[in-house]
């Protein structure tokens, strides 16, 4: 099937699911960082655990060839710095790039404004990219995965992450009750 048609279909389900979970509403997302509403964490990590288990087992059963799936590459410095910056921007804006599109699509002016801010930030950073380039390309580790980094079998990491997520969900439920 045409790859762009696949992209649209996947996007539609992505956007639908985000809106259903309430992640098109900035105050709800921001609640994560004041420990009053941990929906962001619950949705994100349920998704990660589901896709992680799915990828592991489909690969183990020979149905999915993981070597043909693009694994985001590791650049330790830029991703650490970029992550910190992104987090700061996230709590200020209350929406991330994906959810800002959902918010805008449902009529929220703040969502549209986050999109415009994102676009501007990316544009300006791209225009003044030259001094950033060296840092941007530094500390590359290629397609490094946690099993390779920690020298522990894939299945063990999967099990550990499931365990940590289940425990974290319990903690999240307790934190929300106290809020």
């Amino acid at each position, binding site marked *: 099937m045409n790859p762009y048609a696949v992209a649209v279909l*996947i996007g*539609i389900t992505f956007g639908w699911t985000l809106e259903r979970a309430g992640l098109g509403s900035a105050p709800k997302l921001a609640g994560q960082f004041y420990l009053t509403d941990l929906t962001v964490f619950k949705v994100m990590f349920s998704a990660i655990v589901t896709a992680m288990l799915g990828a592991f087992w489909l690969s183990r059963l020979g149905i999915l060839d993981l070597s043909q799936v693009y694994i985001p590459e590791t650049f*330790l410095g830029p*991703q650490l710095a970029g992550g910190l910056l*992104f*987090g700061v921007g996230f709590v*200020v804006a209350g929406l991330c790039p994906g959810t800002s599109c959902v918010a805008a699509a449902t009529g929220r002016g703040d969502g549209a404004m986050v999109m415009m801010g994102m676009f501007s*930030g990316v544009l*300006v950073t791209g225009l003044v990219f030259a001094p950033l380039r060296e840092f941007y390309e530094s500390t590359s580790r290629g397609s490094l995965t946690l099993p390779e980094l920690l020298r522990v079998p894939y299945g063990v990491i999967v099990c550990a992450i499931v365990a940590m997520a289940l425990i974290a969900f319990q903690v999240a439920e307790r934190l929300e009750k106290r809020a």
Partner: protein
Amino acid sequence: MSTPPRRYADPYLAGVCLGLVLLAAFVFAGRGLGASGAFASSAAGVVAAAASPSRAAANPYFARYLAGDGPWREWLLFEIAGVIGGGFLSALFAGRLRAAIERGPNISGRSRLAYAFGGGAVMGVGAVLARGCTSGLALTGGALLSAGAWVFMIAAFAGAYAFAPFVKRAWR
């Protein structure tokens, strides 16, 4: 009288559904989800249109989006179009379509819009450096156990929690 908006879905169930969408992307598209890349590609396209394609291609960051089929035939742009459509449809059927500026109780609409733009801009810088955002890097890379994705995710949560007290007036 209009019907009240439906309740939000259970977050764990929504998360599982999102995970299945992500898994479907692995199987049928050989890649995961994303969002910030769509902004980068369109920024490259705008620069090429506003200046000239050759000057834009001279920029080391935008050059990659101008290669190949060009910045507008970018998988993520089609995906984001879908996200907008899907978000709209979900809100439509749930009675949640509403022209509004969502904000905390102690901040004006204008301030909120300023925070939205500023926060978005800072996220844009972070996403360029990290080569992704919560959708592309945290969700996709997280599920595939990319080390850099987990570094990004932990750093993003840390940055947000650390800065939250400074923008409390926006949300509480």
